[in-house]
């Protein structure tokens, strides 16, 4: 996919996308049911979202386009909680280019921004060209114009790329709609037999792809910082082991298989190291593996449980969970000095922390009145704030722009995925499926 305003050509990413599509076809032989086939339920938004009209795009090819780009863009913006897209049925006209936009029609229904566009197919080849424009209704002027091209299979990617650009233009914050998520799903079968699957999908849950399947537990998926690989824990051999796997080729390497725990892999921001939990030396401690040499460095030496390492954005320290003070709390360890410092004091259960991309605080699991919530701990104010009201919330993972957190929770006895904004104002649930969904990991921006 290319955009002529920025002239970005992404061959590596393109290549991996094609390989993945091919691999999933070959390996699976069936199309898996996608989370996004059912509408995501937005449970909370900001009080006064910006009204925007994403007019259905014009289409010049034969038949109907395989994806409704305007609908995908509208859904992305709605999910951010900051925008309220107008349903097409309420639009007084449906123009496809700025010259056909009558501003009074949009003022009449209190729309602040209008997005119009067209999709053209390239005849014999399956190439698709999309152009779109964004108008500021109050100022009566065009504020964005862009042309994108790609294959017809990339229409969803183009739609998310448009959402990212519009979101950034109107909020000043880069959008993260083009990102991917990893998560684990589990089903309980008869006679105490289980089925575990590790999936990758678009951030909106669409285009779900099976990565690994096992009758034994799969846990703790972690992205490499460039999004090309993942690390995870699999019990497939009867014991836990940490694997790294290339998403494009499927090539896989077993990194550890020590006696005891092999748990919670976390990729360093520069991609050269993997933090993990091993209990080979007695009880669970934090280790860092240099991925080139496979050398291990032990970072903690307590007789308590030390687990759930996560890197600071600068890669110089990690946070982890430890019950060395009896109750699980969050600690920081410096790679250079090995110095350990306790970070959380509020409450008797704080776990699985990750540092926000702007280094302003932590996102973690915090127990309050016997319930497990997703919370934000601010470094400057030293205050803990619960962001969710549901119970059994776990595995928070922050989007690369720091605005949203995906996490796992329960709904009517089943594990579901949900998201909450870092300020707590916006919430949405991914659809409940027939399987338990858990351990989501929000991926980096596509390279």
């Amino acid at each position, binding site marked *: 996919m290319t955009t002529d305003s920025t002239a970005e050509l992404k061959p590596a990413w393109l290549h991996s996308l094609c390989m993945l599509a091919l691999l999933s076809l070959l390996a699976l032989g069936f199309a898996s049911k996608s989370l996004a086939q059912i509408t995501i339920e937005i449970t909370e938004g900001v009080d006064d979202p910006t009204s925007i009209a994403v007019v259905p795009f014009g289409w010049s090819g034969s038949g109907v386009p395989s994806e409704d780009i305007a609908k995908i863009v509208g859904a992305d913006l709605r999910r951010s909680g900051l925008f309220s897209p107008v349903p097409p049925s309420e639009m007084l006209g449906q123009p496809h280019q700025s010259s056909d936009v009558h501003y009074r029609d949009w003022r009449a229904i209190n729309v602040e921004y209008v997005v119009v566009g067209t999709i053209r197919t390239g005849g014999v080849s399956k190439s698709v060209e999309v152009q779109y424009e964004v108008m500021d209704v109050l100022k009566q002027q065009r504020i964005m114009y862009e042309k994108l091209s790609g294959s017809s299979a990339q229409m969803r990617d183009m739609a998310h790329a448009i959402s990212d650009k519009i979101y950034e233009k109107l909020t000043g914050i880069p959008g993260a709609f083009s990102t991917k998520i990893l998560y684990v799903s*589990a089903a*309980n079968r*008869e*006679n*105490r*037999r*289980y089925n*575990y699957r590790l999936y990758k999908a678009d951030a909106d849950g669409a285009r779900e792809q099976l990565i690994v399947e096992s*009758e*034994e*537990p799969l*846990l*703790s998926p972690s992205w490499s910082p460039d999004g090309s690989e993942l690390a995870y824990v699999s*019990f497939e051999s*009867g*014991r*836990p082991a940490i694997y790294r796997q290339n998403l494009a080729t499927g090539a896989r390497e077993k990194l550890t298989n020590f006696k*005891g*725990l092999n*748990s*919670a892999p976390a990729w360093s921001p520069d991609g050269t190291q993997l933090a993990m*939990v091993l*209990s080979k030396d007695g*009880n*669970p401690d934090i280790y860092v593996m240099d991925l080139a040499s496979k050398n291990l460095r032990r970072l903690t030496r307590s007789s308590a*449980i030390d*687990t*759930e390492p996560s890197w600071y954005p600068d890669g110089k320290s990690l946070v982890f*969970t430890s*019950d060395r003070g009896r109750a*699980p709390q969050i600690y920081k360890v410096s790679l250079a000095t090995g110095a350990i410092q306790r970070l959380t004091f509020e409450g008797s*259960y704080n*776990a*699985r922390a990750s540092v926000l991309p702007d280094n302003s605080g932590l996102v973690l*699991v915090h*127990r309050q009145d016997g319930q*497990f919530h997703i919370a934000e701990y601010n470094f400057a104010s030293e205050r803990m704030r619960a962001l969710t009201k549901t*119970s*059994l919330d*776990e*595995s928070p993972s922050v989007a690369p722009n720091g605005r949203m957190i995906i996490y796992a929770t*329960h709904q009517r*006895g089943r594990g579901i995925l949900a998201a909450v904004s870092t300020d707590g104002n916006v919430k949405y649930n991914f659809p409940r499926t027939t399987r338990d969904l*858990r*351990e989501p990991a929000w991926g980096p921006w596509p390279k």
Partner: protein
Amino acid sequence: MNHIKQLIFTAALLGLLAACGGSQPVVDETSSADRAGSADTMGAGADSGLGRDGMDDGQAAGSGLATVFYFDYDRSTLTYETRQALDRHAEILRNSARVVRLEGHADDRGTREYNLALGERRAKSIADYLVLQGVSRSQLETISYGEEKPVAYGQSEESYRLNRRVEIK
């Protein structure tokens, strides 16, 4: 000794079969109980006291000896009943070369990775007790599944209690 090896091999083979999934024949609870109960005829003798998996009452067939041990929330301390049952397991193990697997589990409250560590701590506390009773460390294998393999579902104190366990296999 040969008979014991044979028994372990058969059990391993059955485990493999079961792990092969979908289209393979599945060993159900009844037949596994029968097998454990008929261990005597295979010459395994005293070893029949050691557990088979999946017994609803958490007891080995025919012996009345517990093979599932329960724990308090966020704790790995052994109850009086557990220690009594472990004393009998220790006696059997001291007179055999059998290797047993201690599988630790947690309820689903709290985070998954922390619960893995908690399950390991529980399995180790059973192992440590058996070693104190004279069992060789080399006969004990520990593994933690954390909250990944629950036996009871739903958010109730009772299902939490049933899931906070160590199983001897």
